[in-house]
C-alpha cells in the first residue's frame, strides 16, 4: 500500500434548511471526504461550519466534531433547539 488515500464515501442527513449545504436531493445524500477525515473536515468542506451551533449525530448517536468517519457512516446534521425565555 502506498501513500495514496482513497476518498471516503459517507452519507449525510442534513435537516430542514441545512440541506442547502449539500449537493443532490433527498433526505440522505452521499458525499466524499478524504480518508481519515473527521466530521469537522466534512463540515468545513461543505461550508456547514459557518453555522454558529450544530448538533451532530454519527450512526444514530450524538457525536463530536472530532469523530473520525468510516465508509458508509451516516452523519446527522442539525441545529440545536433553543428555549431562551
Amino acid at each position: 500500500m502506498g501513500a495514496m488515500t482513497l476518498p471516503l464515501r459517507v452519507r449525510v442527513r442534513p435537516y430542514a434548511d441545512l440541506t442547502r449545504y449539500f449537493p443532490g436531493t433527498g433526505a440522505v445524500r452521499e458525499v466524499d471526504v478524504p480518508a481519515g477525515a473527521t466530521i469537522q473536515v466534512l463540515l468545513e468542506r461543505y461550508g456547514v461550519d459557518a453555522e454558529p451551533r450544530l448538533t451532530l449525530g454519527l450512526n444514530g448517536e450524538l457525536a463530536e466534531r472530532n469523530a473520525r468517519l468510516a465508509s458508509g457512516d451516516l452523519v446527522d446534521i442539525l441545529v440545536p433547539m433553543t428555549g431562551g425565555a
Partner: protein
Amino acid sequence: MSRSQGSVHRRFLRVDLTTGGVSVEEPEPDYMRLHMGGRNVIAHTLLTEVPPGSDAFDPENRLVFALGPITGVSVPGGSRHSVGAKSPLTGLFGESEAGGYWGAELKRAGWDAVIVQGRAAHPVYLWIDDGVVALRDARHLWGETTGPVEAQIRGELGDEHIRVAQIGPAGENLVRFACVVHDLNEVAGRTGLGAVMGSKNLKAIAVRGTQPVTAADPRAIAGVARWVAQETLAPGGAHHRLHTWGTGAMVKSKQLEGHLVANNFRDGQLPGGDQVDALAIEASTDLEMDRCYACSVRCKKRVKIDRPDRKVDPKFGGPEYETMAAIGSNTGVIDVMAVCKGHEMLNALGMDSISCGATIAWAMEMVELGLLDERQLDGETLRFGSADDLLRLIGRIARREGLGDLLAEGSLRAARTLGAEAEARVVHVKGLEVAMHDPRAMPEMRRNYPVTPTGGDHTGAAGKRSGLRNTVGLCHFLQYDEATTLTLLNAATGWEVLPEELHATFERGVTMARLFNLREGMQPEDDRLPDRLHQPLRHGPLRDRRLSRETVSDEVRAYYRDHGWDPATGRPYADTVEYLGLAAVAEAAQATPFVAERREPIPAGRPPYTPQREENGALAE
C-alpha cells in the same frame, strides 16, 4: 379615534357580566406609558381589583385581554396579546399569550384591553363592533365545539371577517387547563384561562374593527417590515427555517442530545420519538403555511389530513413543537397523524396541549405503577405509546367523563387525591405542568421555570426579552434585537422611550406579578423544580447527569437579587417598589405586608435592580 396617540387608544372596555353593564374606561394619562400593555396591565388589574384569597372561579376574579402598544401595528410580530386572570390551576398569577388576528382586530376596534368581571345568569357572548358593544345570548352555543361556534357567530352577525375568541366545552366544564381559543388556531393556552371564562358564563368575544391602527412613525415601521420580508426569509436568513417549516423542524437534535421529553420526563430518548416533527408533518400531510396579522414570516402550520380515521381540518391550524412533544413523545406516542388529530381535538374542545398531554403522561405512569384503581380508571386503558388511548382520553377530559373528570383537575390536584407517591411524579412548577423543554439540559429553562410567575411555562417571561415582548405585544419569534424592539415601540407610540425606561417596565411587570403571587399565598419554596427534574434521565447521553437542588436554589436567589427582591424571602424591597412607582398599587392591593426592607441602602442614583441585557435566542423554534 381622535384620542389615540399613535398606536395606543387609552381606552379599556369594562364588562360586568353580573349586571350586564358595559362601560368605557380611560386610564390616567400616564398609565399607558407606565404599564404599556400585556402582562403589566393584567398584573395591575389583578392586584388592584381581585380581592385577596378569592377563588379563581369567584365572579370577583377578573379576566383581562390586554393588547400591547405594538399589537395591531403593521409589522411582522405585531399580532400578540395576552390574556390573564387568577389561575384555577395554580391559584396564582395566570396569564398566556396568543397571536393571530384577534388582538389586532380589537385594536382596530379602538380598544387597548377588555376587562371582564362578574358572572352572567346564563351563557352569553360579547360582541364588540368597533365602539358599539353588546352582550348576546349564547345558550344556543353552549356545549358546542369551537368550529361551529365561530361559524354560527359570524353567520348570525352577518360578517365573515369577525374575529372570535372563545372557549370550547372544556372551558364550560371548568377543566382547569381549558384555554381561550382565538381564530380556532391561536390559543392562550396556559394556566386555565378558558375555565375562568367558563365560570363567568362567557362563551365568546366576537370583534370587528374597521379603523386602521396609526403609528407615530409609519416609515420606521415600514423599514423593519421590509427588512423581515426582503432579507430574512431566503435560505440562510434569520427567519427562513420558521418561514418554511414553522416550529419543530429540529426535534431530532433533542433526541440525539438525549433530552427529548419522553414518557413523563423519565426518558431523554424514545425510539421513533423524533418522527413527530415539522419535517414529518410536511412529508405526511397536506401542509400549508399561514400567518398572523401583518407577518411575512408565515410560520403557522395548517395541516390537512384526509385519512378516514385521522381526518384533520386545516382551519384548526397545526401542531407547534410544544404540542408535538406534549401529546407525542411525552406520552410515548410516535404517530404523527395521531398527534395532528390530537391537536385538532384540543383546539376544537379548548384545552391547553401542554397541561393536557403532561397530565395524561402522568396518568399513564400512574397506571404503570398501579396507583389508579379500577374505580378511578372506570374502564379506561392507558398505556404509554397508545395513540388511541391518548385521543380517547382527550375527549373524555374535556367532557369530564370517567377518569377524565379526575384529570380535568390538572395533574397536581389529581395526584393529591392519590397520595405522596403519585404527587412525587407530577412534573409541575406551582401547579402548572412544565413545558416541553427539559431544564436538565437547557440552562435557560432551568433558570426560567422556577421563577416564572405563571409556573412551568416556557413563555412565562421571567427574562427580560420574553417579558418585554409580552408587554409590548410583539411575537417572540421575530429576530429583532433590543434596539429594534425599542425602535418599533417608539415608532408605534411616539413616546421616545429610552432603554432604561423599557427595562423598568419589565421590572414593573415581574414585580407586580410577584406581589400578586405572594399575596395569594405563594412561598419562596414554590420557586423550585419538581423532584422528577432532579432525577437522572433513564436513557441517552445525559443519563448520568444530575441537576442539584443547590444549583437551582442558587439561581433563584440570584434572580431575586437581580430584581431588587430580598434574596432570602423573594419579597420585593420597598425601594424597588417605590422606584418602579408601585407603592400606591401595593397599598391598594393590600400587598404591603409582602414588601421587604433592605438592610443596606443602595448607592444613590443606582436602580434597585440589576440592569440586564436581553438574553440571546428566541423561544424554541
